[in-house]
């Protein structure tokens, strides 16, 4: 699987409350209704400038804090298919996999805002190419269960197809 997109840079420790404020969830959990507020408290122009196909590129500990799953679905509703980060908080990582949002752990320090990237995943190996400025980054390998969930498009389709884990 290969996806292409433009890098949108974020920093370290982007918590889920920054991705979407808990208070916004009072009104609705419909991600399309929430996506205009994506990252509103730390990057107010972000939601308006995001284009379908953009990729989030972040530093350490992306998605820390609350385990709220709309933090994943709101990113997806904004048209973002993958997040590359130096590391992910475990609950965000799980929620992303479970919803079919691609999350790739790799050294993002050489990537710049607006870089065109192509991300390949083959048999659990991840390779990120910077097509704007050259260079290749290999990501952390993806465990088998995660690969299977990704192939199914997430936990909901996985379980509805199989009826259970075993």
């Amino acid at each position, binding site marked *: 699987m290969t996806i292409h997109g433009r890098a949108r840079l974020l920093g370290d420790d982007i918590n889920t409350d920054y991705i979407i404020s808990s*208070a916004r969830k009072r009104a609705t959990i419909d991600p399309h209704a929430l996506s205009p507020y994506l990252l509103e408290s730390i990057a107010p122009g972000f939601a308006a400038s995001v284009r379908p196909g953009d990729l989030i590129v972040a530093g350490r*500990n992306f998605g820390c*804090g609350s385990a709220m799953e709309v933090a994943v679905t709101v990113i997806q509703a904004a048209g973002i298919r993958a997040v590359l980060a130096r590391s992910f908080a475990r609950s965000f990582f799980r929620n992303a996999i*479970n919803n079919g949002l691609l999350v790739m752990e790799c050294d993002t320090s050489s990537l710049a805002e607006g870089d065109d990237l192509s991300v390949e995943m083959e048999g659990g190996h991840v390779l990120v190419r910077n097509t704007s400025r050259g260079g290749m980054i290999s990501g952390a390998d993806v465990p088998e269960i995660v690969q299977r969930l990704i192939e199914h498009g997430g936990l909901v389709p996985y*379980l*509805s197809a199989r009826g259970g884990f075993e």
Partner: protein
Amino acid sequence: MPPQTIVERILSRHAGRAVVAGEIAVCRADIVIGTDGSGPMAIDYFERMGGRALFDASRICFSLDHYAPPDTPSTQAFHRRIRDFAGKHGATVFEVGEGISHQVAVERGLVAPGDLVLGADSHTVMCGAVNACAIGVGSSDLAAAMMTGQAWLRVPETIRVHLAGTRPPSLAAKDIALALVHEIGSDGANYQAIEFAGDALELLTLEDRLVISSLMVEAGAKVAVFPFDARTADYRRGRAGRPGQPVEPDSAARYVREVRCDLSVLTPRVALPHAPDNVVPLAAAAGAAVQMVFIGTCTGGRAVDVRDAWRAFVQAGGRLAEGLQLVITPASREVLDEISADGTLANLTAAGATVTMAGCGACCGTSGVIPADGMTVLSTANRNFKARMGNATAVIYLASPAVCGAAAATGRIPERA
């Protein structure tokens, strides 16, 4: 069988085979907890997964805690969705005002030693205080667990935290917890478990352990588990629920890291805006003016916290600072009953405090008292991210209940606890 940590032993029991750190296993949960925050999405997912029945309704509960009270049509609708679903399938609902999900689950004895707890709330990790492997998950994992009773889990490596030394009387559990989050860092325990050990454990009440376990998720921890001892047994005596099977680590268990914490040299701590690991000694933050003090949440909203705050408030003068808003949100109805019975509640209301319904309150801006623009808040909570309490221009400091109580009287962060 290789020597195992507490978490490896608990997960082995629930996977039906011996597992060690790094493996991925499908594990069966003893109790599955959702909230009004995570529940509605989980119910949607349960239906989309083709779920017809709960795997075991007696093991599933939902708490109506984040929107307590539900003061909008949309939050009312979330509650109705949960009540309808739970009614149809026979799951338990902790009603509005009964308290925070993991607090109520521990109080009622629904979480037993040795359990695997899956809770769709990051602070589920708090249940580790009673020797359970308690993991915070999202709505999709909650839905899967409702349907199958299971989750796929990577068995985490364990960091062992040794607590040693004599505890100074003014040292709160919150100080220990903040110091540990600072030491480990915001992602220092990511994907890992924390297991507590050491001679100072016997100095920590069960409530102290709940504070410490709850805060470890701010260091990324998947689990924060205490050993079972007389304190655990005392706390659980007289509470309903399964007896559980206490779990100890093997003496040769392997730990990925050892962290030592000497309580005798530890001093009160404050987390500065806007991160719970941005921790300094209290003296470094002293003098900052505050306009709102919040005593509440699953970290700092138990009876002992409210009493500590009241005592410090009285010692600091016993009158609310000019214009300061003191907000008390009990973590549960049991807490509310305890502070009512001993007169603390009446004292607080007479002093001008705003006491809200039990639940999450203003913790994440979903109910309760939302700070005004530019307000500085001092809070017993666990997170001080920008906008956490529902206003991106408010500034939040985190400290122990005693420090918060004193500040309510003086309007400033105090020099000492």
